[in-house]
């Protein structure tokens, strides 16, 4: 015989609450990291891509003429992306 906690019982109200939670917009996601806004993983992926593109353009304009390969920019962007998605 298994014991059932009151909160485990499936009720129409629970179902509605769960659906409401799943419908929350990305900015309502409760995952505060070091970013100043609340984000979900897709927001952080988006921010990473935006930073990657910006970093590559900056690199092409200012650092590549000095002899630094664009691959360094990609490597840095990947590291930033991982940190952002994981901890942001």
């Amino acid at each position, binding site marked *: 015989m298994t014991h059932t906690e009151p909160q485990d019982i499936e009720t129409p109200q629970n179902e509605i609450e769960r659906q409401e939670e799943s419908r929350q917009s990305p*900015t*309502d996601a409760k995952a505060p990291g070091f970013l*100043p*806004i609340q984000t979900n993983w897709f927001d952080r992926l988006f921010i990473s891509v*935006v930073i990657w*593109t910006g970093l*590559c*353009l900056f690199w*092409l*304009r200012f650092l590549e003429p000095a002899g630094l390969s664009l691959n360094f920019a990609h490597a840095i962007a990947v590291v930033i992306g991982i940190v952002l998605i994981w901890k942001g």
Partner: protein
Amino acid sequence: MQSNKLGWFLLAPTLVVLFFFGVVPFLYVVWLAFHQWNPFAVDPTIIYNGAENFRRLVFDQAFLSSLGVTLAFTFFAVTTQVILGYVLAQAFMRDFPGKAIFRTIHTLPLIMAPIIVGSIWKLMTTPSIGIIPHYLDQWFGYDLNIGQSAIAAFTITVIMDVWHWTPLVTLTLIAALVSLPPDPFEQAQIDGANRRQIFWHITLPMISPAILATVFIRLMDALRTVDEVLMLTGGGPGSATRYLGVHIFREVFPRTNYGYGSAVSVIVLYLTIVVCWLLFVGLIAPRNKKA
């Protein structure tokens, strides 16, 4: 679960159309941005050239100049439209004689095609036949010549954009103002708040989502302005009104440089996303966090 399936089924036609007419062309442009392609050349082969288009782009003085004037144009046009649109929306919230006629006339520019707007403003600003240079000369002794003066050409393009698109902002803000509940305003008046306090602490916060949505729409439009400006000034004099849209047009159509044009298009999209996202983060996200 059943309702989800029905939802996806009903959405499917729209999603299919969006995929083929929105996502596929976008991915094609991104793919083309990494290639060199001149379809009208002796050898029309599409050649992969890595980041070469972007490497050229970041040193291209014509592009960088276009970027600067586009950002200036966007800032002045959108700011003026929002301020003027709000003032007009507040004016239309009150009753005055001839309000319906004035509102109709005010909304007319919205239904005009941009190319027509450019033609009208070209007629109105052409020296010797235009009404604007005529009266500016008669009343102020100012010789307006948008074919010679860079500042005059830039200013006229901003005014033209404001004339064309302010009604959109007005209509959006009227809708926002009409939907505001009267209770907070009554309570503020009872508490002795003056009009400025009511505006800053009640009206503005309550209509800020509508303002932000309008600013997003106008930002996206202003950053890709082409036809009006091409018709009015052709991007000149010099590169004074060679906005990014005009720059892309000149690269893609007269020069048939599709790869480089695609790279510039991708960067314009990137800029639009970044500007809108920064605005969202700056204005809306902190409020959501507080809530």
